[in-house]
């Protein structure tokens, strides 16, 4: 089953298996999903199955309000014959577009939530403060962003659980000191799915086998570096999805575009070595120049659907720091206002045809745990459907050699996040170097 139909069948079969667990009376399921594997689609289907097929009350938990808005919009649009409820706090502004969807009810108090079979979507915080009765099933979207103490506050509200998430992404944001729980694999700061497995190793684990977003070339980089325990493939065939241009170019950055046209979905631009700190003006200039080159050369996307021109809204720029985001934003010409420039944290769950990345380790004199974080680089390198251009100062390999992981291990814990990040960074760089995809400009 190597053709597109065969791969689609594998992907569909995985979804069928997930849906079947709910008939089998599986109390809890941890569903690991690689980037762009259609986990939100699975969440939608699980919710719809629970309400429409089982006559159940189903609660869907997201991490943020924005995710709840997005999921509500998708559910109500894709299943226009079914009713959905978005639960938010009284004073929260809901986007106007959501209010116009006829089968989406916005609940601001417990009285607005249906008593019978229903699908109610809200963020974890809202759920933890609500008193809207008991639910039959609970589906947690982006579950790896939910710390266990957040899950604990909603876990008593349902009988059955499905925790869907991407294990390679950025860990939950817990700002306080957590030394007290570092050796506890089920500590309150640990992502909910990991803590659940630590407490109950018998909980059923499944995974989605295909990434619909990433192309095969990218999967060859991303999977071994960030998902050594989660094998997956690309749904699209080699060369099926491409970035092409209508005009030739002779500038330095055009060499990278040509590499991408030749099928290299991940390439790295390397500027001369320099310690710049967080903001690298020259690198930001190069990122904006690359966007201009793509648009000036009439870049277009060729994929399963056909051909379409690359528009600014199809381009994303991901940075590690807000200051870098602003450095890029302020350089964008007016016609590029739709280019999405954001930090890796805010890029979670989003995708663009082409991504430009400010490498987290670029221009740094040290490699601390934040900049080595595998989750940040993983998010950055898994948002594109077609091509990803990494921008960095040279010298990252030397930096990684100088700053080998400190080996600060915690008794009773098998995790070494710093080492995992270091290993992932090295793996990506070695592969890029080996395949001659690093171009100095």
């Amino acid at each position: 089953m190597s053709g597109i139909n065969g791969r689609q069948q594998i992907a569909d079969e995985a979804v069928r298996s997930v849906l079947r667990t709910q008939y089998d009376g599986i109390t809890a399921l941890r569903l690991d999903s690689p980037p762009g594997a259609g986990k939100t689609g699975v969440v939608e289907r699980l919710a719809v199955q629970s309400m429409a097929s089982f006559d159940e009350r189903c609660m869907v938990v997201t991490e943020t309000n924005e995710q709840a808005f997005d999921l509500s919009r998708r559910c109500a649009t894709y299943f226009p014959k079914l009713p959905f409820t978005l639960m938010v706090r009284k004073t929260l502004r809901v986007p106007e577009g959501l209010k116009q969807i006829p089968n989406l009810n916005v609940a601001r108090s417990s009285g607005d939530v249906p008593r019978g079979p229903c699908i109610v979507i809200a963020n974890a915080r809202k759920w933890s403060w609500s008193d809207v009765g008991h639910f039959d099933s609970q589906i947690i979207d982006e579950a790896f962003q939910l710390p266990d103490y957040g899950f604990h506050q909603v876990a008593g509200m349902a009988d059955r659980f499905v925790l869907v998430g991407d294990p390679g992404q950025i860990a939950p944001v817990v700002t306080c000191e957590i030394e007290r729980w570092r050796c506890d694999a089920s500590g309150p700061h640990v992502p909910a799915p990991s803590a659940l497995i630590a407490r109950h190793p018998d909980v059923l684990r499944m995974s989605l086998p295909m990434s619909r977003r990433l192309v095969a070339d990218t999967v060859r980089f991303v999977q071994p570096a960030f998902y050594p325990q989660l094998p997956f493939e690309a749904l699209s065939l080699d060369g099926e999805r491409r970035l092409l241009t209508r005009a030739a170019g002779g500038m330095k950055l055009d060499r990278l575009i040509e590499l991408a046209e030749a099928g290299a979905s991940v390439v790295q631009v390397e500027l001369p070595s320099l310690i710049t700190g967080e903001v690298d003006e020259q690198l930001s200039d190069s990122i904006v120049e690359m966007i201009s080159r793509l648009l000036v050369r009439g870049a277009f996307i060729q994929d399963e659907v056909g051909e379409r021109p690359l528009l600014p809204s199809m381009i994303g720029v991901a940075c590690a720091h807000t200051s870098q985001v602003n450095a890029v934003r302020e350089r964008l010409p007016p016609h590029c206002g739709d280019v999405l420039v954001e930090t890796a944290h805010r890029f979670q769950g989003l995708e663009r045809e082409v991504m430009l990345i400010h490498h987290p380790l670029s221009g740094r004199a040290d490699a601390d745990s934040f900049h080595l974080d595998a989750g940040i680089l993983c998010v950055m390198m898994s948002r594109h459907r077609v091509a990803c251009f990494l921008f960095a100062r040279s010298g990252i390999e030397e930096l990684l050699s100088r700053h080998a992981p400190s080996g600060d291990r915690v008794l009773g814990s098998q995790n070494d996040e710093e080492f995992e990040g270091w290993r992932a960074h090295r793996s990506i760089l070695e592969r890029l170097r080996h395949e001659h995809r690093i171009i100095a400009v």
Partner: protein
Amino acid sequence: MAVELSLMARLLAYEQRCSQPISSHRLVAVRLDAQVLSVLAMAGEDTTIHMAACGELGAKPSLRSVPDPRVRDQQYQLFEWLGKRFDNYFRRCRAAGTYPQIWVSSSAAASHLDTLADRLRFNKNNDEVRRFGELLTYCTERFPIAGQQTLQTATSALNLHWITGQDQSEDEHLLTLLTWLDPPNDQNLLAAVANAERVPMGVKTDPDYDRDVLLPLVISYNESRRAGSSQALLDAKAQLIHNALEPVVIPIFKATQRAIAMLADIARPPLPGLRDLEHREAEEFAGFMEARDRGYHLPLRDSAKLAAFRLTAREDAIQNTEATIRLGDRMARAAGRLNGFVVRGEVLDRGRSRLAPRRFRYEFSMSTVQRVLRIRLRDELQWADDPRLRVIVTDINRSGRRTSIRCEILNGQRSIGLPEIGTVLEMIPSTPDWSRLIRERGNLKAKLGVTPWTHAQGEIPVLAARKAPDDPLAAVEALR
């Protein structure tokens, strides 16, 4: 503190060979009845106290040592002595409705007390030692909580107010830090710092000193003890050990006192929200003592429920402390502008539109040239000068280095009204909410009253199976 500010201040301090102030206010409370505690552990024995120096602010220390802390009974006597002092102090604070404050030299000392507390509070042989462990636990469990005022390390407290020209990790040595803060007139600063570094300021004696001075004395004492020597001889040998430890612990105690005096005499007003932080401290202390009276256990490891309570309290403390400092301290506000948490902009236009006969929408736009901004659509902001004015961000437009932010007023349109055109506003994401933790705890109590199976040990419940259709995916897709 924004990286740029602290880096600039550090470079300036290095260039001028003098520490630089990094706060406009005093950010920690200095209680007049605070206790200063300096302890020395025996090398290789992390749960011991070889000598303790304890005293009030500005007072001479009371000293107590044991010849060999590995001898349990002797060690317990020292713990009992310390425990009694703690107990009396805690009782006085409780009676006065305040909270205890213990000062140590550095985080190494705080960490040592943490290890001791974990060990001693489970002591089954001696009630007084266990009580001392419990009281110590209160201090060490407060220590990681943002804005706490109970267990203060002199190095951290000083570092909140001044920055030196040395590496941040070197600031953990109290005497070098004090040398930067108060450089000697007659000596090169870096030479003075190098000299200061040679003085032990943590909880351990110098290894050479251990080997050459302390070890022979302890061996000699133990030989006499095992040989059944007279009490007079043992006392004499114990005194020799005491005399050897005293010159090590006294400089630590004095340096800690000096640091506190610098903070108490600092020519900066106390942070406006410091009283709230102290009030929170007193509440937490009262709760802890009440739990002691009721005999509640202090576990070594947290259950999922307790961990949820604790983590929630820590997150709340961070939010409130950051908001308090950002609101009250000018340097923190400047750092907020640099790292984008505070938005400073000029009001460009303002307007009122009618939504219904008696409903209006009040809006204004502000323009900022801040390079770093951490705002996005639907964020809620408050005016730093009068937080009653609360707005929601309805649009953000960036053009080159200028960003225009459209805001709609949510609160304060009557009390404060629309800001005048040309006014410069500083908007902050939040102000302290001192009642939030009470609400959070109440909610957690209700939500976690019954522990779900997901967070308890035991079997996973079994649910009844249903008959599945041949193709469950098709069944769902048919509902589109």
